[in-house]
């Protein structure tokens, strides 16, 4: 016989309590956009209402105006082009050298024995400090600037590369050997593609280093360049233009990060 239905009422509110929530934070875009908008509004208000001295802290609107003026006069593109040229050449040179050394350290005992202590010893030297030396050796022109950037990119790239090569699973290399692949083929088809994720993440670091060093390198003898723009705007007491230059630098950094992200997504689809 079925039990009386009088228990139906209490059955309905006796559910098993839910205990598995939380500890899974997700990023939504809304709060970030609002936070940025609020910050910028507060900043503008601080300057407009004279809480902050407009002489030393230009308002967002003034920075925007300075940026527009630079773009309209065409000067901005000259500065960006000059910096990008130095970054591109320096980064390519440093990356080529760093990858060559890093992969060699990853593959060959002699390279590793010599290379790892050398890199560890020279890596910590701030490349900015070497700039006067490079000027002495290469002159005040582009070579000393490119050399500073290249050297700054070389070391983290070498470190990332040999770490990435070390992280290629040995089982895949043994598999390739067991199929009789020659050494060059194993490097080309197993080691390098396997090291690519580590190498690409090393690029993120080396790209931001290149950006920092281009500003330092443009301190001597650079009429054009974003770093030069920031520097001489400071000398001219044009703080609005200075911060406009800083904004451009940040934008440059964001673009580079975006491009690298895209590259990673395309090349590492197999992960």
């Amino acid at each position, binding site marked *: 016989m079925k039990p009386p239905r009088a228990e139906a009422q209490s059955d309905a509110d006796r559910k098993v309590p839910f205990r598995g929530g939380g500890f899974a934070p997700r990023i939504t875009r809304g709060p970030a956009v609002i936070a940025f908008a609020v910050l910028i509004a507060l900043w503008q208000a601080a300057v407009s209402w004279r809480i902050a001295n407009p002489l030393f802290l230009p308002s967002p609107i003034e920075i925007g105006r300075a940026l527009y003026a630079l773009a309209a006069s065409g000067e901005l593109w000259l500065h960006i082009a000059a910096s990008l040229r130095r970054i591109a050449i320096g980064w390519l040179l440093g990356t080529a050298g760093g990858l060559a050394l890093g992969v060699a350290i990853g593959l060959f005992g002699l390279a590793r024995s010599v290379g790892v202590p050398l890199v560890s010893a020279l890596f910590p030297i701030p490349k900015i400090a070497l700039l006067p030396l490079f000027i002495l050796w290469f002159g005040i022109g582009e070579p000393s600037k490119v050399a500073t950037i290249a050297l700054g990119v070389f070391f983290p790239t070498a470190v990332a590369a040999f770490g990435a090569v070390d992280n290629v699973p040995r089982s*895949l290399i043994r598999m390739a050997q067991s199929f009789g692949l020659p050494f060059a083929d194993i490097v080309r*088809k197993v080691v390098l593609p396997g090291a690519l994720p580590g190498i690409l993440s090393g690029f993120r670091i080396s790209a931001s280093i290149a950006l920092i060093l281009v500003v330092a390198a443009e301190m001597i003898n650079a009429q054009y360049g974003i770093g030069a723009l920031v520097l001489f705007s400071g000398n001219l007491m044009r703080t609005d233009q200075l911060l406009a230059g800083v904004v451009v630098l940040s934008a440059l950094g964001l673009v580079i990060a975006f491009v690298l992200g895209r590259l990673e997504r395309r090349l590492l689809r197999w992960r």
Partner: protein
Amino acid sequence: MELVVDGVGHAYDGLAVLDGIELAVRDGEVLALIGPSGCGKSTLLGILGGMLQPTRGAVRLKGDPPAGTLNPFTYVFQDFALLPWRTVEGNVSLALEHHVLDAGERGAAVDEVLSLTGLSEFRSALPKQLSGGMRQRVGIARALAARPAVLLLDEPLSALDAQTRDLLLEDFERLWALRRVTAVYVTHNLDEALRLADRIVVLSRRPGRIREIVAVDVSRPQRGVATLAGLRDRLWRLIRDEAASADREIVAHEAA
């Protein structure tokens, strides 16, 4: 071609894992190697294919590999060892790219093994899209593409669940019937060995010595639970105490 294992012993850093192995791998046979964990079966397999150099003894070849052999000693791995960035097709063709074949010949060879292993419609898939069983089929296809003289399988089904294992065992049986190749098959699973092997080499616990070699006289079509029961008992009795003491040894070793 026959492989003769002549007094092979191996030690890692002073720890002996194989001792005095004398063995012949006959042409066209499937030889299973079973034994408890740590008995050196995978080590012996590595030595057989030239991936490991034994600290004592040697493996000798009698006769030549059959005509058309591309990679005489070819492995199938427990963890599949597929290149994650290559498709199924790319992984299989890896075995052939460094041999002297033109693109047409290579393409035909790849197509052939893909259809043999039932992978034709998965040729453009990436390993991450495949189940464990499918991945191992790619490993087998790759190994077959290399036209091996001796196929060396290192616990190929250990990483798979029981149902997938049964499916793949059926595939193995089918492939063996189509394309006879000498094979050395390492496993710790008695039933696998009994289903597939012509002879079963039972290794003792570490250091691995040959305990006994058991011939599986039942013809393949007739192999079933009933027909293999006697052999299974015999093998289990052989392995059981080796397995039990190996088990305890490992625990004691770790505690020390």
